[in-house]
């Protein structure tokens, strides 16, 4: 869900032409804000972890060792340095599982956002541009879908079609595209209005080309901000579904799954749930902090206040 007020989508669109000089200025504003910088760094680290998981992970995340099960983290009595964050119910190394879990969550999140973003943006742009019947139907459908209690349906559908990463991506994308569509449509409507006026004055020149030239740059900044927020929402939903057993399945590593496995052991082996849960928290928090900065930075009105 976007953090915008539910006011007129049209007025939310801002006219921004992003050029390289602006990009540099953008980064400068980032460095002035320590929280956002930290968030950005954390995100970069997470991406690195996700990509380089096989290299960084000390053990194979599926390697079991029944004799070493439920070892506490290294700094607790009974822990060992071999398993920094301890081992789980089957003796698998927690740190390795968390690293691969990063890969899993980020991969799912990014794919969902890309798929939903592309589909949603295209449909939204079409709706805004074409107007008329198509727009009316699309809007009704979008309004309608946003009203449906989504987590409930996601659970039911996942239970029916079978859990697993691939189905998860499909279901999450289905929930996410409407957000992109609504924003894209709103931006399109405002641009189209302005462009129409402009085009009326300018002789010749393909309307399409003008739209593209103006639409894309305007959309990019808002869509990117929205994408980061949707990424955080996708990761949260995936973690929730995996926790309930309807998402990523064992023996794969996913944070939600790990939290569920540690559920009965809160009093005796809390590291099973705490660390993966913390990862989700850090990830979504960093994304949201970053997204807040991104929104302020790409919004010329707000930028003045920075």
């Amino acid at each position, binding site marked *: 869900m976007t953090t915008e007020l539910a006011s007129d989508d049209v007025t939310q669109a801002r006219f921004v032409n992003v050029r390289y000089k602006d990009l540099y200025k953008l980064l400068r504003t980032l460095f002035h804000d320590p929280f956002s910088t930290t968030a950005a760094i954390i995100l970069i680290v997470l991406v690195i972890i996700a990509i380089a998981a096989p290299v960084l992970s000390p053990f194979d995340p*599926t390697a*079991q060792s*029944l*004799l070493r*099960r*439920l070892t506490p983290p290294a700094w607790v009595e009974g822990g060992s340095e071999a398993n920094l964050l301890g081992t789980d*119910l*089957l003796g698998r190394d927690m740190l390795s599982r968390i690293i691969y879990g990063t890969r899993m969550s980020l991969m799912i999140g990014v794919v969902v956002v890309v798929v939903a973003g592309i589909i949603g943006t295209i449909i939204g742009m079409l709706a805004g541009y074409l107007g008329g019947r198509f727009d009316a139907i699309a809007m009704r459908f979008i309004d309608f879908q946003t009203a449906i209690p989504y987590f409930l349906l996601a659970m039911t559908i996942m*239970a029916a079609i079978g859990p697993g990463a691939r189905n998860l991506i499909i279901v999450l994308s289905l929930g996410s595209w409407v957000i992109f569509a609504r924003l894209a449509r709103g931006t399109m409507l405002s641009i189209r209005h302005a462009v129409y006026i402009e085009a009326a004055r300018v002789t010749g020149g393909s309307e399409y080309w003008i739209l593209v030239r103006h639409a894309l740059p305007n959309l990019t900044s808002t869509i990117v901000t929205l994408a980061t927020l949707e990424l955080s929402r996708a990761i949260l939903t995936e973690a929730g579904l995996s926790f309930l*057993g309807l998402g990523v*399945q*064992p*023996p794969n590593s996913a944070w939600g799954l790990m939290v569920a*496995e540690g*559920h*009965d*052991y*809160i*009093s*005796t*082996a809390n590291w099973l749930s705490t660390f993966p849960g913390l990862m989700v928290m850090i990830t979504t928090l960093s994304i949201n902090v970053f997204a807040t900065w991104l929104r302020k930075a790409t919004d010329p009105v707000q930028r003045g206040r920075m």
Partner: protein
Amino acid sequence: MVSKGEFKKKAALSRRQFLKLSAAGGGSLAVSSGLGGILLARSAPVFAQGNTNLVAAVGAEPPSLDPQAIEQRIPQMITWNIYEPLIDRDDQGRTIPWLAESWEQIDNTTTRFKLREGISFHNGEAFNADAAVFSVNRIVAPELASQWIGVVGTIKNATKVDDMTIDIETHDVDPILLGRLTALAMMAPGWTQEVGDEVSSTTNGTGAYKLRNWHRNVQVELESNEDYWGGAPSIKSATLRIIGEDSTRFQSVKTGEIDIYLGPLPDHLPELPKFEAPLAQEFSMVRLSNLEGSPVADRRIRQAMNYAVDKELILQQLHAGLGTVSPGQLSAPGMFGYNPNLAPYPFDLDQAKSLLAEAGAEGLEIDYVAPKGRYAGDAILNQAIAEMLEQAGLKVNLNLLDPQSWVRFGDRNQTPVPPSCWYLVHSNSLFDADRTVSSYYTDESPFSAYHNDEIRTLFEAGRVELDLAEREKIYHRVFELGREDPPAIFMLQLVDLWALTERTQFKPRPDGRFILRTMSL
């Protein structure tokens, strides 16, 4: 923009506004906490303790209290205190007369039972031949779709001979009729017909306890039947609280809030005040398919799989050492047909690998279907077993499914081509090999994926053999053959884990029934 003075004024006022808002907020908070408290108070369960009230915890709401319809563990914890069978078991697991005093065999398929006199149901109806006949016929009737049908299905019907005598007829010769009757609860005909659908939410039995109250999703309350024919029990009342979370049950028994619960995590045992762990008639196993076309049809592969799994390690690490490794058969001492001469498959990875090599099965890909959430720790256990099989060189496609889907894969009616491996815990409440063999050593049951001609012949003979010694020899041979041509990876004989407080005196029966009148505080 705004002058300093104005700014200050604004701030001062917004502080007042802030306080006002907080007051309003605090007020509504107080009101709703009051409301919440009232709502909760109305539904608060009874925590009463004292020397005659036992509090137990169960993990889920019983779906029904109809003792003949539902065969699940939790409802049985309640119903076997209220209802009683014709035959019961003693603390060694042997059948003993109960509501039936004596019996004699009339012919091959008919047994005549003499009923105990002077017993009545809680509502006053007399327990007599009418009631017994009604109860037997009710449970085998197709309309009821009883979950007990697998146990009592051999019974054809019951007929009245006189007021306190009945005849029970079975479809075929049935050497274990008595054992089956321990599962058949006696119900009152008048009352059952009168209450109709309410039979699942109200009770009327001959037992030592009556249902006092069923507070849905919260608890079931029982009170003692002071007129019980066997004498009033020492525990005067019992509450079975529904606590879904294991961690809560665990904490509650530590603080004494509850006295007993079934199925603590093995990892929690060291911290429990007390626990009982009698061996149960439950055998965990990975059913293997040797049917035509199965990747593991070659018996050497199945033997290899038995060598590949380190059952001792699993027993120690995942079951806290409680239980025993199955000695190459799905049977145990105390069960009829158990072969004492068979040894368990030792853990021998080299032997496993060489057998696989012999059969040309290195790198063989197999399907392994297991449940998650059906048995305690099942997901973890099966991941461990699958990993061990991989160590031996097999490629295991592990599929952890929800209980409904998992059952489907084990039922050949729904999955004609069974998976190579299917995990389950075989529960043999009849203490007799017949059920085990028919289910898993022959292809008679839809839940079997195994065929062996020699065993089949022996099994048919055992079915109709009435001479006990002969019958035993037959089953010995069956299990001997079965060890060499394994229908499964023989895993463990499990225990029934009960967590208790110090004050609770409970000697669990081998059949695992929760019988309050045998307990004391």
